[in-house]
């Protein structure tokens, strides 16, 4: 399963429609919507938390959350 947690720094992807129910409401509200573009900006040591930019919002989320959100990698 390809999720936000499998992105490399600087890589772009789109959030997949399938993970709608896995995205916590608060994250949805902050712009992390299916179809939205997501970029991994930085990783903390041990790859957790992740610093991402999604739909123009710069957010830090934990790996636990990131690994539930499926993505389609941009080619």
């Amino acid at each position, binding site marked *: 399963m390809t999720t936000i947690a499998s992105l490399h720094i600087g890589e772009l992807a789109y959030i997949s429609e399938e993970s*709608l*129910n896995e*995205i*916590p*409401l*608060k*994250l*949805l*509200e*902050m*712009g992390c*919507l*299916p179809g939205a573009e997501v970029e991994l*900006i*930085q990783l*903390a*040591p*041990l790859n*957790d*938390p992740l*610093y991402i930019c999604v*739909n*123009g*919002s*710069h*957010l*830090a*989320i*934990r790996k*636990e*959350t990131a690994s539930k959100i499926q993505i389609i990698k941009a080619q």
Partner: protein
Amino acid sequence: MSHKKTINVALIGNPNTGKTSLFNELTGLNQKVGNYPGVTVDKKEGHSKLQSNLKAIITDLPGTYSINPTSLDETIVLKTLLNSKSEKTPDVIVVVADVENLKRNLLLFSQVKDLEIPTVLAINMADQMKRKGITIDLKLLKKELSNEVVLLSVRKDPDIGVEEVKKAILKTYNSAKAFPLCNVNNRIDPAYFDRLKEINPKYSIYELWLMITQNSFPDKISEDEKKALLTFKNDSKNLKKYQHKETIYRYQKINEILKKTYLADRSKATDLRAKLDKVFTHKIFGYILFFTVLLLIFQSIFDWASLPMDLIDTVFANLSSYVNQTMPAGVLNNLISEGIIPGIGGIIIFIPQIAILFLFISLLEETGYMSRVVFLMDKIMRRFGMSGKSVIPLISGTACAIPAVMATRNISGWKERLITILVTPFTTCSARLPVYAIIIALIIPDKKIFGILNLQGLTLLSLYILGFITAIIAAIILHKTLKIKNTSFFVVEMPDYKLPSLKNVFFDVIEKTKAFIFGAGKIILSISIVLWFLASNGPQAYTDVEKNIIEKTVSQEITEVKLNQMIASAKLENSYIGIMGKSIEPLIKPLGYDWKIGIALISSFAAREVFVGTLATIYSVESDDDDITTIKQRMASEINPETNTKRFNFPVGMSLLVFYAFAMQCMATLAIVKRETKSWKWPLVQFVGMGVLAYICSFIVFQILS
């Protein structure tokens, strides 16, 4: 429209949008911090003149991304908005948005709109538009949103911005039109929402929907209606699905509108942020930088605070002796000069340190750096059952645990927040310093080792580290033993870097310092007065002391000063607090303490630093707290009659240091913890746990060393 002279206006918006800057500009010095009824969240309120005959009471609601709350602060926003049909609630809401994140900001705007409250949209940081390649068709945006919209730059042109917002508030208030933006109900399940609306058509559909999803009901709703609403709640699976659908629909609608009105040329966005992030969030440099910043902060606190602290100390000591000499002698004189003035002085003395620390924390938060620290520290802190957000309270704890405990409110996971609250008092707060200073001076030689490191300074540093390490160990134990599930999850916005607004920093420091003065101050002052009473009153033996001593010494050649000191000392021994000290003596003897230290321990429950003053009184030194050398000399020459050696020898001193490092000797913190955790259970756990730890460790230290 209406004839009332005052209207209520609430500011609402995402964090980092400049909402607080706007609030500060609108209200200036006409602001105060109060409490929301029944909860502990601070309510920031101020007033502003809209027109010659119309004043607005402006409330700065806590920053939030949505009306659906996930933390204590955000719940306030919901509660304020849901009570929209009652007296004290907003007539107009100003949604403050940031031009760069307009899309996300409009989500909150759309929610507020659907509550059908007259709303103004204030898009801030408009001066950044050119730099970031953003263009907005303001006229069309107003039309599409059917709402007043103002563009402003509070930082750059505060006066223009404030005037525009005021005008928009007036216009919106006078037209008082309010209709929903999204009509979510039609898009999700019309039949379901129609049934919902039947419960009470007076409320908007969105209001009723929020009451169900958030389980939060306005004061005015009837029991029957509440029951009817609760039946809708049973289908929780649908509820969650509908909430997701609602949010997605809102974004669709917002995207539609922004497509026509908002254009951002991404290539123009500057890469300053990216460059700074590369350094500040770097896996190695990020940490080095953070610890350097911490060191600099602590260094400056010590450098800058010592002068004003000495000054305050002298002023209060002089004031005390002035009152003592000028007022007619008697109980009132004693109460004021020995109880109240030293009590107030004991509070004021901490203000320099606390204000300087909060100045730094506020600067770090304003610039956006603090979010990077949270990001860097989250994984590490999680191992200890805390969150990256726990770093701020733990640093604040080195000034005072009271504002630190209050700073835990934005930690959304309850378990993480609770652990942070419970371990924060282990960090070395400013009240421990005077105690450490005098004991270190007594037992550690003023020598340099390796030519540069001062042994006394090194001991003090070790005590700081001991505090942090104990906090971490306690957190690990709590993490393993507390069976609480973290229901909330972690997300932090990483705002763009910006220069701090001095005005915001100023108000922030004032606010937090006030929290200390009124939180701890009241308790410190009242306990000081109780202690004064216990120390200056006693049973029959107490009243006879003076007569007995004069009789005993009548044949000896002693000065009047010496006689007075003997009387004062004997009086204390026979006072209520002396009796208390003696009665706990058997308990504290294994730690190396006598009844005199026992008195100091008891009185330390007001605030730890009272220790020094109490010992000064007991050893009947001229009661001038400032003059450490005299107290120090007196303490140094105090003899333990049983062993005929010094009372404050190395083992006793170490035992005391350990005791003060661990014991929960602060009533004010206990009171705040009770308020924040809404139960006596946790302050009790803290008090007993830390007390037992302090006792055992001091016991071991004393027994091994002696």
